[in-house]
Structure formats: C-alpha cells, structure tokens
C-alpha cells in the first residue's frame, strides 16, 4: 500500500459501517480518529481525576484532626504522593491533550491529525501507566517520597514503589512528547489554505506554545528519572550523597521540567478560555495578537524560572535574584491575558450559561493563584513560606481554580459539538455553585495556615491549626459532592439531552461549521475561510454561508461570513448520503 492508502485505512475507524456513525465500541479500542481519541483522553483522565480526588479527600480526612488517627503516616505519604502524581500526570496534562486532539484538526479544517496512529499510541500509553501507578497501592509498597521524589529520600523508601513511580511517569512523559510532536506538525502543516497563523483560533496558539514547551522540557525530566532509576536499582551515585552524588542536581533536572509543566497544565486552558469568553460575550476577543504572543512569551519564560522552587535549597545567593526576576516577568504576559479577557467581556452581551460561568470562575480564581505566585517569587518571602500550606494554597488556586475550572468550562462549551446534545443548564449551575464554594472553602484558609507555620506534607500538626483545617476538610467534602451533578448530568445529557444542532452558540470558529458530532473526516469538503475566528458584531455576521456550497470561494466573497445557521439543521453526512 502506498502512504496515501495507508493513511486512508488508518482514518477509517474500526467497526463502523457507515461514515458519521460511531459505535460505542469504537471508544474502547485502538482507533485513529482524532475525535475518538480526544474523547478517550477526556473520559480516561476524568476517571483518574475521580481516583485522585478520593485520595485528596482521604488526605483531608486525616488532616481534620491534629493527630495521626485515620491512616498510618506511611500510608498518608503514599496518599498525597499518588494524589499529586495522578492529578498532574494523569489528569490535567493529558486532559489538555484530549481537548487538543478533539479540537485542533476541526479548528484548522484538517481531516485528522498529522500522524493518526502515533496519536492513538500516545493515548494508549496512559491507561497502563495509570494502572501501574495505582497497582502500587495494592502491592503494598506505594511510592511515598512526594511527587517530586527528591533523593536521597526516594532512594531510601520502598524500592518497588519508587521504581513503579519512575516507570509510570516515564511512560506518561513519552506519551506527552508523542502528542506534542503531533500537535506541532498538525498545526504547522495541515491548516486549510487561507488560514495564516493570524487566522488561527487562540486555542491553537496556546497548544502550539504548550507543545513546544513539552518538547523542550520533558526529555530533561526523563533523563533525571533514568539517572534516579540507576541510583535506585543499580546502585550508582548520581544523586546519592553516600557515594558522593549531589541530590541538588536532581532538583535542577526535575524542576527544569516540572516548572514548565505548570504552564503545560495551564496554557491549553488559557486557550480554551480565550475561545469561550468571546463567543458567550458576543464580542471579538480583545487584543488577539497580544493574547497569542503572550502564550509564546509564557512558554519561553517558563523555561528559565525553574530554580524558584529551590530558593531554600542548594543554589548560590546571586542566582536566586536571577530566578526571582525571570519569575516576576511572567506576571506581565499573564496579566495581559487577564485584562484582555476582562475587556472582551466589557460592554458585551454576556450569556451566563454554565460554560461562561466556569470561564468567569476561572478568571476570578486564577487571579488569586497568580497574585500569590508573584509573592512567592519574592525571595525573602518565599524563604519563609516555601514548603508550607501557603504553597499548597497557591498551587491549588492555579491548578484547581485555573486548570480544572478551565476543563469544566471547555467541557460545557464543547459538549454539544462532541455529543450533538446540550447539557442540562440547571444542573450545570448547581455544579458550578458547589465547586466555587468548595474550592474557596478548601484552599483559602490554607494561605493563613502556611503563613502561621504549618508546613506541608505532614500527617500530624500543631493543635492550634485545628479549626482552619476543619474548614478545609469540609470544603473538600463539598468539592467531592460537587462532581456528582456533573457526572450524572454529562451521562444523562449525552444519552437523552436536547439535540444541539450544529452551532448552538452561534460561534465562528471552524469546528462549529460541521455537524455535531462531526463526521468521520470532519468536513465534506475543505472549508473556506471568509471570516476571522472572532468577528462578532460585524455587519453581515449573521448571514450564514453553508459549508457545502458548491462554489464557496465565489459566494463567500472576501467579507461575508462562513458560519452555519443555528436554526437550520446543517446538512449532515447521513442526509447527504440519502440524497446520493
């Protein structure tokens, strides 16, 4: 078979007799359709999120009282180690890849990703890696040196658990490298003719920046972990001080990846929020180029700030100043994004549906994490609060208030596209309200705990902190409860929800110009771009030009708008087939 034929067969999902109709079985097997893979990613990672969330609540239950009375200290350490590892490597990072998989080809008018098989391979590394990690709990020797796994501690705790942890993270890292290569090539090579980089939706810019960052930083983590594995298994002493190794070198290698990783976790959702806010505010995004370039700036600066995690560890005095300044500078592009979102909402016609509420919640809580981040960059202050609950509060405002709310906003926004059905708005709003209350109740008091002197990663603490810890724990229970309306709503709406039509939000980006859910190869014919992605409020913006127009270039004209009419059902593949 030629390359082209291979590509053809690769694109036909297993088990489907007709294009456009997918069987539920497709989602459980090796499938190369980017939309199937995207949903596989999202569902799988959400399951891991629930597991990580249960662990978080076990951690919080232990911390309800100052004594160690719920689990043993060893189990406690395993719990927060697994909680963090799962949340980071099995939920937020791959969830971003899930959205990118589903959306990028649609947004740029491509039929699929550049390397569909590689794409599927990248996904299929995740379930075994996750199961491996969780299996370590069952084996009874779970990793318990924290998700940072600093030697020498990680070398003297259980060997099996630590080895499993390294294996699992290496697999997940490989998966995200493969994904990143695919996104970059797709974004660079597969845009429809006529879509220059400045016509790309902002989510694509964000994924471009994220993937570049992944490619540069992940291999360094892999190198660090492999050396750590040698120390652990083969008795070398790269990091082991008993043989003259230097544990601080590990910290450099680890944070060279793991600081950028927080941008890998947040940038995709910056991108998603930049899609959601203009659509539901009915206004063009304010400062398109500023937002696009600020993603690149964040991605570049993200590579030179890692040592701010090591201000109290082994780096020379002057070097702390360098990393303080680079860290501070990141606040500038981040601020640009936040102000641009506010300006987009200002004067708009804001539809306060669940997607938009989560987007507003994202901006509102992320700001708190961002502000405390700038404070942490100030070396003399960080020296006080490093490794305390102030940091735990900061990181959860960023990762929960940022990434997780961003994921929810994106799910509510693209749910109609993914499933062809609307979510129930009432239960969506209940979900939102519970999440916001739970989030702030859990993490706000932690700022004070950290400042007053509660260090992190401890199973027993000074009784004077009991009251605030109780509040945090009850907040965590509310967060656990908050996921139920979401899970039930998502499943119910997927099966029985109101039919969505192709473009229920009257959005302008290309993914809304096809059927919901999109047909196997996305578009009947190559779409033609006649509008920017955010041209809301422009004169003829409401005249839709059907995509299947036999002569789209001519009829669309330079200023008319390519968009599907919300009321008129868009010609589906099925109806097209009937006509033939």
């Amino acid at each position, binding site marked *: 078979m030629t390359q082209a034929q291979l590509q053809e067969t690769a694109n036909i999902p297993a088990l489907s007799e007709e294009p456009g109709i997918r069987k539920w079985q497709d989602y459980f097997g090796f499938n190369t359709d980017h939309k199937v893979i995207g949903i596989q990613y999202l569902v799988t990672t959400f399951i891991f999120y629930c597991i990580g969330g249960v662990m978080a609540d076990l951690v919080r239950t232990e911390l309800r009282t100052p004594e160690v009375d719920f689990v043993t200290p060893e189990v406690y350490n395993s719990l927060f180690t697994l909680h963090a590892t799962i949340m980071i490597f099995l939920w937020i990072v791959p969830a971003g890849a899930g959205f990118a998989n589903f959306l990028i080809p649609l947004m740029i008018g491509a039929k699929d990703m550049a390397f569909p098989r590689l794409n599927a391979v990248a996904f299929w590394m995740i379930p075994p890696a996750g199961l491996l990690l969780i299996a370590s709990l069952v084996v009874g020797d779970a990793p318990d040196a924290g998700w940072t796994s600093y030697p020498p501690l990680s070398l003297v705790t259980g060997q099996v658990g630590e080895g499993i942890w390294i294996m699992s993270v290496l697999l997940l890292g490989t998966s995200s490298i493969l994904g990143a290569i695919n996104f970059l090539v797709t974004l660079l090579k597969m845009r429809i003719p006529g879509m220059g980089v400045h016509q790309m939706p902002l989510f694509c810019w964000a994924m471009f920046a994220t993937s570049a960052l992944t490619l540069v930083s992940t291999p360094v983590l892999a190198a660090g972990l492999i050396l750590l594995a040698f120390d652990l298994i083969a008795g070398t002493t790269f990091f082991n001080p008993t043989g003259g190794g230097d544990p601080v070198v590990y910290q450099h290698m680890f944070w060279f990846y793991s600081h950028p990783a927080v941008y890998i976790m947040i940038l995709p959702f910056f991108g998603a929020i930049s899609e959601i806010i203009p659509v539901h505010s009915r206004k063009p995004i304010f400062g398109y180029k500023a937002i696009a370039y600020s993603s690149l700036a964040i991605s570049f600066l993200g590579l030179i700030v890692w040592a701010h995690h090591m201000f109290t560890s082994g780096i020379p005095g002057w070097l702390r100043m360098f990393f303080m*300044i680079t860290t501070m500078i990141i606040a500038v592009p981040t601020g640009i994004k936040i102000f641009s979102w506010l300006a987009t909402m200002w004067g708009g016609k804001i539809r306060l549906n669940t997607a938009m509420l989560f987007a507003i919640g994202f901006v509102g809580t992320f700001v708190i994490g961002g502000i405390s981040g*700038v404070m942490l960059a100030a070396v003399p202050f960080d020296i006080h609060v490093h490794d305390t609950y102030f940091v735990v509060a900061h990181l959860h405002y960023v990762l929960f208030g940022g990434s997780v709310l961003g994921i929810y906003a994106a799910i509510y926004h693209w749910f109609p596209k993914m499933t062809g059905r609307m979510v129930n708005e009432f239960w969506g709003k209940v979900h939102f309200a519970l999440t916001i209350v739970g989030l702030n109740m859990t993490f706000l008091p932690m700022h004070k705990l950290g400042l007053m002197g509660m260090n992190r990663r*401890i199973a027993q603490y000074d009784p004077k902190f009991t009251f605030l810890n109780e509040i945090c724990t009850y907040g965590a229970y509310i967060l656990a409860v908050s996921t139920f309306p979401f899970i039930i709503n998502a499943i119910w709406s997927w099966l029985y929800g109101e039919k969505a039509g192709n473009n229920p939000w009257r959005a302008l980006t290309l993914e809304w110009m096809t059927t919901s859910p999109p047909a196997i190869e996305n578009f009947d014919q190559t779409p033609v771009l006649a509008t920017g992605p955010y041209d*809301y409020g422009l004169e003829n913006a409401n005249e839709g030009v059907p995509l299947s127009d036999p002569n789209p270039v001519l009829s669309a004209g330079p200023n008319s708008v390519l968009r599907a009419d919300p009321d008129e059902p868009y010609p589906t593949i099925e109806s097209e087939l009937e006509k033939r």
Partner: protein
Amino acid sequence: MKIPTSIWTLLIGIVLTLASFWYGQNHGLLPAAATDEAVLVDGLFNAMMIVSTGIFLLVEGILIYSAFRYRQRAGDNKDGPPVEGNIPLEILWTAIPAIIVIGISVYSFDVYNEIGGFDPHAIHEAPMMNQESMAMPGSAMAATLSDTPPSTEPNLNQEKSDEAMQDPATAAVRNADQIPQLRNAPGVGSVAPTIGGTPDKAGKPAELQVNVTGLQYAWIFTYPETGITTGEMHVPIGREVQISMTANDVIHAFWVPEFRLKQDAIPGRQSEIRFTPQKAGDYTLICAELCGPYHGAMRAPVVVEPQEAFDKWMQEQLVASKETLNQAIAVNPADLSPNEFLAPYTKDMGIKPEILHQVHH
C-alpha cells in the same frame, strides 16, 4: 443628579486604595517576628499585600460588575460592539504590571541584601563552580557550565567540614564516613546558599556559632565553643547567631516560622544561615522538607532569651553533659549508631520511642 463617570472612577479608585492600604497593614496573617530579619521580611510582605489587595479587588470587581451589568437581556440576540483592541490601553496594562513587578523586585532585592543574602564572604573566597566538580559523579550538569581545566585548589568544603568534625558531638551525629563532603558546593565549604552576615557584619564571624544536624526525625544542636549537645536550641537576644547545618540521611529543612528563615540541610553539604534574635519567647524549629513518614513530628524547641538566662542554661547543660559523658565514657561516640548515641538524650528532646525506632529500620 447624574454623577459623571470620571467622578465615579475617582471615588472607586480612592476607596480601593484606602481598602488596600488598610488590609495590607492589618491582615494579621503572620506570627510574631522574633528576629531582625523577620521584621524586614514582614515589611516586604505587607507591601506586597497592599498591591495584591488592590489588584484583587480591581480584577474581581470588574469581573463581577461586567458579568451583571452586561449580561444578555431576554430577547436580545444581537452581538456586542466589535471592539477588537486598543493599543494605548494594551500598552498601559502591560506597563502597569511591569512597573509593579519591578518595584517588588527592587524591594525584595533590598531586603535580601539587608538580611545577608549577598554576604561577599560566602561568595568571594571560593569559586562559584569549583572546577573539580567534573570529577564528581552526579555533577555532570554543573560541569557543562564551565569548561576550564581542573584546578588544584584545596577542597574548602572538606576543610570546613573537618573543622566542624573536631567537635566530638558533631562528629558523632554527622555520619561523615558514610556521606562524604561535596567539594563542588559554592561558597566556603558551605553550601550552598546562604543567608549570611548582614551588610554591616559581612565577612566577620558571627558572635555565636551553633551546629545543627538533621536526621530522621530529630534535630541535634551542638555549641562548638562549649561542646554541648542538646535537643533544644537556646539563643540570646541581640547577638548574631550563625547556624551551620547538615543532614546525615535525607534532606531536612531548618525553619522557625517566627524567624522567617528557612534553609535545607543537605547530606554531603554544609549550609548556613545567620540571624539576630530580637524577641524573647519559646518557638519551634520545624523540619520543612519531606523526610519520611514522621516528618510532621520532626520539631525541636527554640528558646530566645536574655543573655543571663542563656548563660545560666549553658551552665546547666555543661553540668548535665558531664554526667552523661561519664556514663558513656567507655565508648567512643563515633562508634555508636545515631540511635544508640541519641538514647540518653531522647527523653529531654521529647522524641517518642516509636519515632526513634523508626530511625533505623
């Protein structure tokens, strides 16, 4: 009467500023400040709280205001005005955060210098990246930063470490034959990273020296001038103290919240911090770096007291340590495992037997 927008903006601006200043000064979020350094750090924190409160109120205010004010009214399906950008505005909101972070950086830089972050003594005498680092396993990454040929300079780290080992108590807990001294640590035989002498005291030795060793899950203090070993740290008010610390198993971190100072104690390295206690009281030294299951229990009392009380305590310790030494005279402390060595002290140090059991398993 309709109040013009500019007046509203001005009023809101004034209220915001006042609220920020008030909260920045009255947040009550920090514990007591017990050292000269802590007072400086608190000044920085309060300044950052003022700015943060302002930004927080501004952003949340605009967000909530626009969500209500500009929400879509029933039946209105039109789009908003197609405003796509505004260059002066964008420059403004790039410039304001830039100025704020530069301001915070300059202030932090100043505080950092005041608390001794730039003690030249720690930087000048030893090259930043000792060239022999090439020969050290595990320092490959550091080595690539410099391609100068290996030097023949003496290993200052080793010398300093040997010096500290003269003290038998330190020698007993330092585990030095198992964990060799790194030679590529920057600074004179120390560390890493240091909060050294404040600018006026830089280069001079501190008035009181305390060696601190962290081990799973206890802190051991030795006073080299008197040879005392304790599980409780006492320091006199108003005299500059230098802590030289290391760890003999995994990384620990020295943190007294009321001192606002933290420093990792790393096996194979020596790190140091200097500070001047200011306020009498009983504080707690907390280990702030995950060091195993009983990490949360790794605490030690720290007492800041007037000079006379300190001297009195020192006398008591000298008497007590003679007695302990008499009991243990037959054995060389260096031959004992930390567990055995610590046994006589554990009661005083408040270490529970189950934790000690944990030390060697």
